[in-house]
């Protein structure tokens, strides 16, 4: 019984760890570098190699992916998807979660320029300077508009149907502004990706100063705020309860086991 119990615990722990690994999903994108071609390439070459098979030769879309010349498409949306590593994806129904970007900054710029050339009427890559914004203003705007989905603590949350509002822990100011402008998160395999098709609403009725301030507040959330010690994932009472039960009560159970006797022991 002893050995089997230990085996069961080890297998269980292994399963949990495997689940964590799977869920944390740092999947490798299909980059040209991964395929072994390291010579510098133009935007057109990159597009043809990595994007055209889903998005069409001139960004007109195919059965596998939406067009890139529509109402929302342009610098902002393209830059957002590429710089957060959400694109390119290897399979049509792969989740578009944040990953390491597949391209360096030169390639990224070239690709964005190429896609802009398809004629989409969406916003351009925005200029954001959190230094010009005010953290206090940003805090108010964030609480009013962002906290419900992305959590007051910026760790994100679940939406319906398996979608999530992602953590903002690694979002750059430009990415924040871009997401607000286009409302990203089209469903995988969705042929349309225009206004109102994203998981995130469109928040484009904000002044530059307001966007700067929101970016400033998100930057604050990323770097500070955990004055009480370990943040425990900033999830709230769920993790706090787990710590109280497992670590708090657990330690105290150990303590009283040490202080007291068990059946059969002497005082």
């Amino acid at each position, binding site marked *: 019984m002893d050995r089997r119990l230990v085996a069961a615990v080890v297998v269980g722990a292994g399963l949990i760890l495997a689940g964590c690994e799977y869920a944390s999903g740092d999947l490798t994108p299909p980059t040209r570098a991964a395929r072994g071609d390291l010579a510098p390439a133009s935007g057109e070459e990159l597009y043809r190699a990595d994007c055209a098979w889903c998005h069409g030769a001139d960004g007109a879309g195919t059965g596998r992916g939406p067009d890139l010349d529509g109402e929302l498409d342009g610098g902002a949306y393209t830059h957002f998807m590429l710089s957060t590593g959400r694109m390119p994806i290897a399979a049509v129904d792969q989740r578009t979660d944040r990953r390491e970007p597949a391209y360096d900054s030169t390639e990224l710029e070239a690709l964005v320029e190429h896609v802009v050339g398809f004629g989409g009427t969406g916003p351009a890559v925005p200029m954001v300077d959190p230094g010009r914004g005010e953290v206090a203003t940003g805090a108010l705007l964030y609480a009013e508009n962002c906290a419900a989905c992305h959590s007051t603590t910026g760790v994100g949350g679940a939406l*319906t149907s398996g*979608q999530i509002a992602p953590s903002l822990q690694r979002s750059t100011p430009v990415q924040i502004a871009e997401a607000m402008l286009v*409302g990203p998160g*089209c469903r995988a395999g969705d042929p349309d990706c225009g206004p109102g098709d994203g998981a995130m*609403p*469109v928040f484009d009725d904000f002044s530059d100063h307001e966007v700067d301030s929101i970016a400033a507040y998100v930057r604050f959330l990323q770097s500070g705020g955990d004055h009480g010690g370990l943040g425990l994932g900033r999830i709230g009472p769920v993790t706090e309860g787990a710590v109280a039960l497992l670590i708090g009560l657990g330690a105290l159970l150990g303590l009283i086991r040490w202080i007291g006797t068990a059946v059969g022991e002497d005082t």
Partner: protein
Amino acid sequence: MRSEPSKTRAIAISFGVSTAASVALAIVYLMGGQPQAEGALLGVSLGGLAVGFVLWGHRLMPKGPFTQNRETSSGRAERAAAVEDFESGAESLERRGFLRRMLAVALAAIGGAALFPVRSLGSRPGRSLYHTQWTPGARMVTIDDALVRADTLEVGGFITVFPEGHAGSADSQVVLLRLTPGSYEAAGGGAAPEGYVAFSKICTHAGCPIGLYEPATNSLFCPCHQSVFAVMEAAAPTAGPATRPLPQLPIEVDDNGYLVAIDDFAEPVGPGFWGRGR
């Protein structure tokens, strides 16, 4: 069996460590304090005392175990005598039935009167749950008192609005969404002027603000108990414990391009209560 000096040494060390931690804690405090240092040092200082006491109890105390007898509960005679003592004292009350009844009535009356301050605790519910601050023609404003125009939101946009003059009013909070113009009517819904629809933001399950909107599925999602409301079906609940759709606010665009309410909601907003349908 440990020798006497080694037994005492561990205890002495514990108390010594505790003392050092307490001194360090005082220094941290004098220098302005720091939560992690305070907690850790307090923990060590208390822990040192804890270890010292327990070790003392384990090692240097008279070796047990010791035995003691339990007494039985009060003997039958004692119990009967107690009852008799009570009853003999109660004799003077026993034969005064009329006085006892008058006393009972007086106590009941003062008890009842003493409950009346409870009524001062709050206003009567009345019809307050049946109405919000929305009135016919009330213009929509954001929390910052900015009027909402027909061009404020893009398709896929989402904002919380209130009646003008009542920004922040809890029962009047409304989610304003902009759908693709024509799509709401095409799905069988009512009017959606320029694609705008407005619903009460208060979840009909337990009253949380429904702060999550997913344009891709046109769902409003309540974070408290995961009720999902399908916007295209007039915010009918499609998942979770909510049983009623979100009341819809009838709206239109006025001559100056502002979004206004046509009337208050047709039913009470928020979660259910006993006489809700009356």
